[in-house]
Structures are given as C-alpha cells and as structure tokens.
C-alpha cells in the first residue's frame, strides 16, 4: 500500500503458534497500529498428498479437520474449498442453534453439538458470539399444541432442557409478539429451550480455520474438486481439482448443497435434493426481541442480531436450484406472517435478502456415512439444520473417518437406512424441520 508501511501477511510454510486473542493483546497491538497481527490461517499451496482430504470448507468441513487433528492426531489433512471458506450455507443461514428435535437420534446428535457450542469461543480463542438467549417454538393450533407436547416430553426425557410456555409467558419473553386469540393463527403456547440461541456464523468458520491451521491442517481455497481417483480394487486414492491432482488415503465430503454433484462424480446417487432456502434481514434498530421465535404453521422464524438487524427466515422453495436465490412468493409470505405475529415490524424495512442451497433428505435428517467407494465418506443432507449441528457434525464425522466406522451418534444416519426403511423422519414432527 502506497502509504502504509504495514507488514504484509506472508505465506509461511509450516504452522506457527498463534497469538492469543484478548483485550490485552488488542491493547498491546494498538500501540503498533495493529500491524503486528498474524494471519488467522495460512492458505498454503496444496501439497502432493495428504492422509485425509476434506472436500468443503464450510463449518462442517473445518470442524471435521479440526477434530481429526485435535482428537485423532491426524494432522496431515487438507480442507479443499472451491470458493472462500464459509461462503456456502455457513455464511447464509439465520444462525439459530437449538437441540429441541423430536426423534431420540436427532436430540442426541444436536445436543452433542450444543454442548460443543457451549465451550467453543474459549476452546478456539476466537469469539464466535454464541448467545444462549433461548429459542421458542410456537404452536398455532390445537393439533400443533398436541404435537408440541410430544416433542416437549421426548426432549425432556432425553435429559435436554426444555419448558412448556403459555401465551402469557411468551408475551413476557417476547413483548413485540401478538397473543391476540382472534388472529388467523393465534399463539396457543410453545416450548422454550433456554440453552438454544444464536452465534455469529462467519466467526465459526474463521475460528475453526484458525485453530485447525494451528494444528497443521492446510486450508486451501479456490480449489474445486472435479473428480475422484480410485485404485483398481476401488479404494479412493485422491481427487482431481482445479489446482491439479492431490493424493489421499481417505476423503471426507461435506459439500452440503453440492452433495449430489460430488456423489455423481464418485459414481453413486444420493436421496438428496438441493433446494433454495431464503432469508432476509431488516435495517438495524434498537433491541426489540431477545429470544429466537419459530412458527412452523406460518413458516417463519425471527431473531435479532447483535448489530440490531431482525433476521427472518422461512421454509425452503419447493424446486431444485443451485442459484442461491428463490422465488419472491416465499419472502412475501414470510413478511406477511411477520407483520401478523409482530405488528410493529410493518414499517421497518428489509435491508438485504439472499438464499442458500439446502441439501434436503426425504426424512429431513442428515447422512453421515461410509459410501459404496472404500475410503470415501459423506456428511451431508442437513437440510435446514446444518448450522446448529456444526461442531457435532464435525466431531462425529472425524470419528467416522479416523476409525472407518460410525460411532453411536452417527450410526442411525447411514446411507443404507433408505434401503432398509429405517427413517428418522423429522418431517412428520415439524411442518418445517428446523
């Protein structure tokens, strides 16, 4: 830079111990105009070979690499990202975290993730701003209220924190909500998970990238996988990429919306459809809502970011698309439902609207599984539940890759459940499985 004498972040080869982040580090670095900070991760040139290659540099891919290095001592790992890390669904979701699902298998997996969220900033020394502000699922009809009682009991007896809340409690927790019994879909009650909340999605990708890099993981961006190479007897031996062939004994694919594309490259098919999921934020305003509130009956959920933007999300569009955008009738319905339930939002203004590519399974549950190709593992199909599962997904997938067999948490999510009929159907339980 012509005027600045700042030291450029150079690409060092080996991993270097990271500076500790803290208020004291900030103060110290302020004295030297913050020109002393190191790179959060190195972005090195790809080596010829690794023990394990992770395909997909989103939250799930980065946590998998981190746990491989930290828990299983597998450090000769590369994370290959076709664009920029955290650029897929990790950077496009509405940052909701909870574990209040219906089926035992789901509750155990998502609560495993929630426990990992609880110590994340400290473990990574990177503030991911995980706030356990509480998540409320609302029921808007007698049928939904009965259905919610089933979910409440299942969560409670799985040892996970959950409370039944009635309209008056809900009004105290969420002052801007309407509990008018005469609106079209009145609030009948809900369940509150206080341990649920939100986090800063970008920070999760950066925090894990930094921590994984410190353990020796190579994070390689702008490196798209274009094919899989296999030994004569079928074992995976590496991947073709836009930056040349890279060898590996094991390859773990965590490509979310692009799962179908990669599976087809590897010669098998998945029960996955890539669907647009749209969301939007309002302009930043002073705090009006502290909780995350979800309404399946009217397909809308709401929370407020630390910057003051109301974050609104809805269900997926119903057609396949990789365009990261959907049809305007969904946001239209979302905003009508928002005005209906939160009347003060009518005069606020939408600031930004976008879409992600959500990999949905027929039973709205993920696939964490070996595949017909030895040494090739897939972790995908998270649908609308990906962000909240991030650390748990990486943790169990690292375990699967390291030991070439799923642990107890991942076992129900094998690919062959669609052959045997053992479905963990979260659809039945929620109009929109969030």
């Amino acid at each position, binding site marked *: 830079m012509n005027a600045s004498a700042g030291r450029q972040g150079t690409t060092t080869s080996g991993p270097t111990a990271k500076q500790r982040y803290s208020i004291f580090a900030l103060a110290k670095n302020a004295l030297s105009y913050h020109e002393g900070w190191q790179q959060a991760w190195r972005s090195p040139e790809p080596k010829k070979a690794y023990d394990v290659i992770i395909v997909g540099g989103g939250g799930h891919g980065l946590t998998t690499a981190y746990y491989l290095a930290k828990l299983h001592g597998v450090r000769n790992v590369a994370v290959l990202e076709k664009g920029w890390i955290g650029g897929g669904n990790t950077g496009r979701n509405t940052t909701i975290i909870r574990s209040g699902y219906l089926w035992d298998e789901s509750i155990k997996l998502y609560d495993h993730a929630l426990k990992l969220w609880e110590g994340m900033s400290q473990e990574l020394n990177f503030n991911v701003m995980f706030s356990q502000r509480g998540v409320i699922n609302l029921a808007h009809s007698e049928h939904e209220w009965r259905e919610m009682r089933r979910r409440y009991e299942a969560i409670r007896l799985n040892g996970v924190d959950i409370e039944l809340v009635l309209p008056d409690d809900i009004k105290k927790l969420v002052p801007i909500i309407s509990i008018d019994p005469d609106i079209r879909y009145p609030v009948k009650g809900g369940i509150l998970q206080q341990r649920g909340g939100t986090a800063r999605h970008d920070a999760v990708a950066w925090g894990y990238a930094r921590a994984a890099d410190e353990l020796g993981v190579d994070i390689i961006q702008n490196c798209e996988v274009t094919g899989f190479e296999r030994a004569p007897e079928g074992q995976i031996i590496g991947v073709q990429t836009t930056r040349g062939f890279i060898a590996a004994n094991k390859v773990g694919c965590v490509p979310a919306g*692009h*799962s*179908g*594309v990669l*599976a*087809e490259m590897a010669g098998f*098919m*998945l*029960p*996955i*459809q*890539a669907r647009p999921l749209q969301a939007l934020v309002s302009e930043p305003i002073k705090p009006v809502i502290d909780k995350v509130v979800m309404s399946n009956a009217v397909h809308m959920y709401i929370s407020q970011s630390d910057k003051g933007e109301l974050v609104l999300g809805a269900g997926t569009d*119903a*057609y*396949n*698309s*990789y*365009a990261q955008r959907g*049809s*305007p*009738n969904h946001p239209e319905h979302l905003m009508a439902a928002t005005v209906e339930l939160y009347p003060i939002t009518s005069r606020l203004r939408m600031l930004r609207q976008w879409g992600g590519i959500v990999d949905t399974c*027929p039973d709205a549950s993920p696939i964490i599984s070996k595949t017909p190709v030895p040494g090739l593992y897939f972790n995908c199909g998270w649908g609308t539940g990906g962000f909240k599962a991030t650390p748990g997904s990486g943790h169990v997938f690292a375990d699967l890759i390291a030991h070439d067999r799923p642990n107890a948490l991942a076992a129900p999510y094998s690919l062959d459940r*669609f*052959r*045997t009929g053992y479905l963990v159907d979260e659809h039945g339980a929620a109009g929109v499985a969030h």
Partner: protein
Amino acid sequence: MQLIPCPWCGPRDDAEFHYGAEAHVVRPAVPADCSDAEWEAYLYLRRNTKGPFAERWMHTNGCRRWFNVIRDTYTHEIFASYKPGEPMPDIAQLTAKKDA
C-alpha cells in the same frame, strides 16, 4: 419468479406449479421382483444435477397436468417443456444451440 412453460396453458409463474424432481423415473413394472436396493433407488435416489436437468412439474393452480421441463438448475434457463409420454429431448443438443 421463474416462468414455467406449461405445454397447454403457456408460461406461468412458478408459484402456480408443484415440483416433481427428476423426470423419466418409471415405477418398476413388477415391484415384487425388485431388490431392496432397486426399490430404494425408485423411492429415493434422484439425480440432483447442477445444470440442464430433465424434471417434472404439475400445473397445480392451472390445468392440473403433469409435464416435463428441461431447465438449468443453476442459471434457471429453460430449454424445453414436453408432455408425459413424449421422449426426453437430447439435452446436449438443446443446450448447445445456446452457444451457436
């Protein structure tokens, strides 16, 4: 809002339609002879192509007929729509015309 060309009613907003995923997936003639894997393939395994894709749509709010469309799932360009029973057009040839 994509314009989906119903072979009968003509182009209409995609909100008027129901989506049926990959086209030309035929229900096995004798299900009893299918292995579990073959039945799994019929039930669940669908192509999820990024790019030109033969897929099914039903004109829910219009003439209520099912039909097929060749649509690029990334660019949302639409190359053709045709009635059930008609053969799948040659996608490569269809999309090549674009560059000619």
